[in-house]
């Protein structure tokens, strides 16, 4: 592979790595698995990179490859979901701006999202990333109407998890 291509790829991935990290956090439960998935996504992105023609933004293309890797290609470690784990790796809210109740609520919500199945998690993730239903439907390969229906069901599942 030529050096220019490598440099261009690594630079773009370095700039957009947050997308991959967010997916890794949602789909894994410990730092080792996070790093494993990050590496696997990087390998898959690099393999597909020669076919990336720039028709879409690099980041848009990354969503698809990274989610596909997390949902279909990645072999999860045998570790069971440990509720303590998500506490330590879930996001932290700056405490001076928010009171404890809101922080607690957000943590619970993030925990509930992590408990969704792989597909629902992908939907909610894209929703949190402020993607349109059109983009969500194109990434997953379902119709826009179904993406909306599915999203409403996922929200319902979240509501039930939080208020059993």
């Amino acid at each position: 592979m030529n050096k220019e291509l490598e440099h261009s790829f690594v630079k773009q991935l370095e700039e957009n790595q947050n997308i991959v990290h967010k997916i890794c956090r949602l789909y894994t439960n410990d730092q080792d698995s996070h790093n494993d998935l990050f590496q696997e996504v990087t390998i898959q992105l690099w393999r597909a990179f020669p076919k990336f023609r720039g028709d879409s933004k690099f980041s848009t293309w990354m969503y698809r490859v990274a989610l596909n890797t997390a949902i279909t290609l990645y072999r999860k470690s045998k570790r069971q979901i440990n509720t303590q784990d998500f506490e330590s790796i879930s996001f932290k809210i700056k405490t001076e701006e928010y009171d404890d109740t809101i922080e607690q609520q957000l943590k619970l919500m993030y925990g509930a999202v992590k408990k969704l199945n792989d597909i629902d998690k992908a939907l909610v993730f894209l929703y949190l990333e402020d993607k349109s239903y059109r983009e969500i439907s194109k990434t997953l390969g379902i119709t826009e109407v179904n993406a909306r229906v599915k999203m409403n069901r996922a929200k319902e599942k979240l509501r039930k998890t939080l208020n059993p």
Partner: protein
Amino acid sequence: MDQLDKLKKEWQSREQELPKVSYNSIYKMLLKKSSSIVKWIFIISVIELLFWISLYFVIPEDNIEVMNEMGIGDIMFYSNIVHFIIFGIFIFFFYKNYQSIQVTDNTKVLMQNILNTRKTVRYFVYYNLGMFVLVSIAIDSYFYSRSHQLYEIMDFANKGIPEEGFATTFIISQIIVGVLVIGLLIVFYWLVYGILLKRLNRNYKELKKMDD
């Protein structure tokens, strides 16, 4: 949903808390090997192919001689050639499917392609199991109908095995061995692909449900 929208508001603002992987570390990752499911499906299927092919090379010479003397040597030879041609066709389809797996497709298409690859491998195994059963039945009934000839060729008289009851013992032992082999193959296949593709299957069903 109020809480989810609150989370959404926070979602983008906490990016600085995410880990940062350096340019050099990313660069090093490009050289690492993939450990994806597809790669494992591919490796296992190739091992399977090699396993079936290698079986033909471990058949003892004696067996071939017995076949020849029983008068089915030629039939076995030509049917093996046909068998290998069918093998070749399977390998062709297998590679075609494998190449169609593009991580840049949408999730549903990607899963469909992976499951298609699996389907080809499954047909391949069905074909092998089916052939094993058919050929065993054909050879065993042929041998059973000519058990006296077989008894003489195998030189059982000199080995102190009485001819009386030989045919029955022969056919029963053949059936037991055959059933055991098929059982082992089914267990192997179920374990390997069942474990590898369980989650994928579940995800695919989730996606499919939306279109029904």
